[in-house]
């Protein structure tokens, strides 16, 4: 007959759980420490810096100031000291936003048919096409941007061919324009739109398409009424996956836009270079991060809702 035991109810389980959790924390420690020190932690430092005063030769003076944040949106007229909108900044925000939207739309226009084409290939060939679409994505962003630059320069292939054929008499100025940036970003981020849409089309039940045809729909009608709503989650996912990097793009606008057509990332860089306004740069970075976070949260919401609906 058993008498009172040494173990309280659940005691051993709790012990085991604690030991397990402790071990897992220890294993995670190196990664956590490295990232806290050299990725996440610095972000917090940046928040602090956004509330400081710019130093005379760059860096900061440890005096509290809200100017960093204020100057993101407004500026003081140097002559009569009135507050006015920082037009330069606002136009840059607008350019970043609109170019990102344009890029998203363009990648959608070209990416959707591409994804459709690949997804409707027979199984053997499908992988090859997929691979072909992904390879450029994995190659160096800078190299791809340089490739576009060499293409659209005044001495580049496109202008040369057009001149040779005689369509134009002078080279078209494509470099250092908003067009160049949009073209470059579309080129560079296209695979990011293709892959999620491809995944959505792959899951599509084609019997539904057949049923639509059975009910007298034309192919395009079937597309708009049946296919498109069903692959919408893929489209949304792809859109956000293109929009976010576009918003924070740095290399592509720098190479293709030059010094005059700045996007968010370039404006931020300016503050740490010739602009010598680190607090402003920090504030701008945080603004960018916030914008991206909002888009990311929306993305997570949409994709988890999609999973819930099955």
């Amino acid at each position, binding site marked *: 007959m*058993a008498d009172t*035991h*040494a*173990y309280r*109810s659940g005691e*051993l389980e709790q012990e*085991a759980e604690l030991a397990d959790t402790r071990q897992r924390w220890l294993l995670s420690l190196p990664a956590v420490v490295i990232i806290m020190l050299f990725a996440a932690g610095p972000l917090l430092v940046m928040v602090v810096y956004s509330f400081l005063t710019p130093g005379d030769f760059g860096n900061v003076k440890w005096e509290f100031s809200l100017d960093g944040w204020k100057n993101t949106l407004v500026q003081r007229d140097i002559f009569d000291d009135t507050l006015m909108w920082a037009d330069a900044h606002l136009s840059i925000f607008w350019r970043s936003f609109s170019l990102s939207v344009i890029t998203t739309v363009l990648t959608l226009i070209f990416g959707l048919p591409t994804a459709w084409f690949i997804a409707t290939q027979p199984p053997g060939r499908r992988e090859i096409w997929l691979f072909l679409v992904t390879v450029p994505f994995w190659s160096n962003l800078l190299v791809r941007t340089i490739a576009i630059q060499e293409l659209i320069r005044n001495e580049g292939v496109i202008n040369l061919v057009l001149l040779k054929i005689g369509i134009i008499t002078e080279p078209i100025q494509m470099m250092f324009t908003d067009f160049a940036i949009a073209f470059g970003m579309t080129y560079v981020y296209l695979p990011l739109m293709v892959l999620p849409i491809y995944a959505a089309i792959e899951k599509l039940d084609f019997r539904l398409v057949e049923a639509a045809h059975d009910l007298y729909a034309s192919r395009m009608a079937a597309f708009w009424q049946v296919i498109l709503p069903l692959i919408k989650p893929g489209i949304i996912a792809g859109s956000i996956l293109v929009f976010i990097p576009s918003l924070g793009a740095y290399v592509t606008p720098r190479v293709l836009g030059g010094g005059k057509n700045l996007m968010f990332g370039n404006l931020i860089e300016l503050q740490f270079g010739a602009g010598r306004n680190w607090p402003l740069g920090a504030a701008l970075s945080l603004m960018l991060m916030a914008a991206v976070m909002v888009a990311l949260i929306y993305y997570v919401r949409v994709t988890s809702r999609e999973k819930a609906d099955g």
Partner: protein
Amino acid sequence: MIEIENATKTFGSGDAAFTALSDVSVTIANNEFFTLLGPSGCGKTTLLRLIAGFEPPTMGAIKLDGKDITRLPPNQRPVNTVFQSYALFPHMSVAQNIAFGLQMQGKSKSEVAATVDEMLRLVRMEPMRDRRTSEISGGQQQRVALARALAPHPEVLLLDEPLSALDLKLRKEMQIELKRLQHETGITFVFVTHDQEEALTMSDRVAVMSAGKILQIGRPRDIYESPAERFVANFIGESNFLNATLSGETVTLAAGGDYAVKRPDGVHDGTVSVLVRPEHIGLSANGSGLPATIENVVYSGEATVAHLALSSGEEIKARFSNAPNGDGALPGKGTHVSLALAPGAITVLRD
């Protein structure tokens, strides 16, 4: 000797809490072939895992030869497991799998080699010793799993439904194999299954479980012939349950007739359920006995089962071994017959 004292195991918490084991106590003797038998979800595998040490109990203790091992992790218990999925290491050969436990124990190379050879001989897998475990058949994998668990010569071997993936013929062969192995090695086997025939064939003792509790422990014969309660009777073998009235040592069937019974503890006079096994029912030679009407006769190879209706409206099954040449075949549907019950065929159930 394994002692499980008041083991309870709950998973989850709050509304989602699930009690897998509820205050289970059992003592398993040395050198015993002990079987945990029950339907899926009854807690038998959980109990096995508690003995192995893969889970700590929520309450209760596990003792091995008087020593409390509840706190010990699995790699410090002299207990080995044959898993239902075998869990053979795919990146190692058959011989390397078998050697594993011995190497972890720090045995010398020569000792490991000798034991591996011995084990391969024991389960008759010598020609396969260098094969990858993914290249051998299911039955062969099972034998390797067995050899691997036996090689370190543990005090207890736990077997979690090891035969469930095998086809019928192989199963029957392995049942005999396992029995033989247990005898030869003298290791205590704790065997888990949901197959009652398997349990009855192989075990020294059986524990019938349901919903986290042990309902009855006993030798196969005792469990079969004297089931303590309805669930056990129903789970093991074929059963007929009849209504009756108990008075002293006599039971009067609702369908008629008085029969002498052994009265189990804790049962009072009055309405009871009784169990009669189909094979204990025969046709009365002289027309006296329980009146019944044949409703259906089903032939199944070695036996014929007759479905009959009694005067009380109850239905029972009677089982007859088939004689060669079809002699003594049963009468057809609709015939009125009298049934004779073998002496001691009636067991009073305790619930």
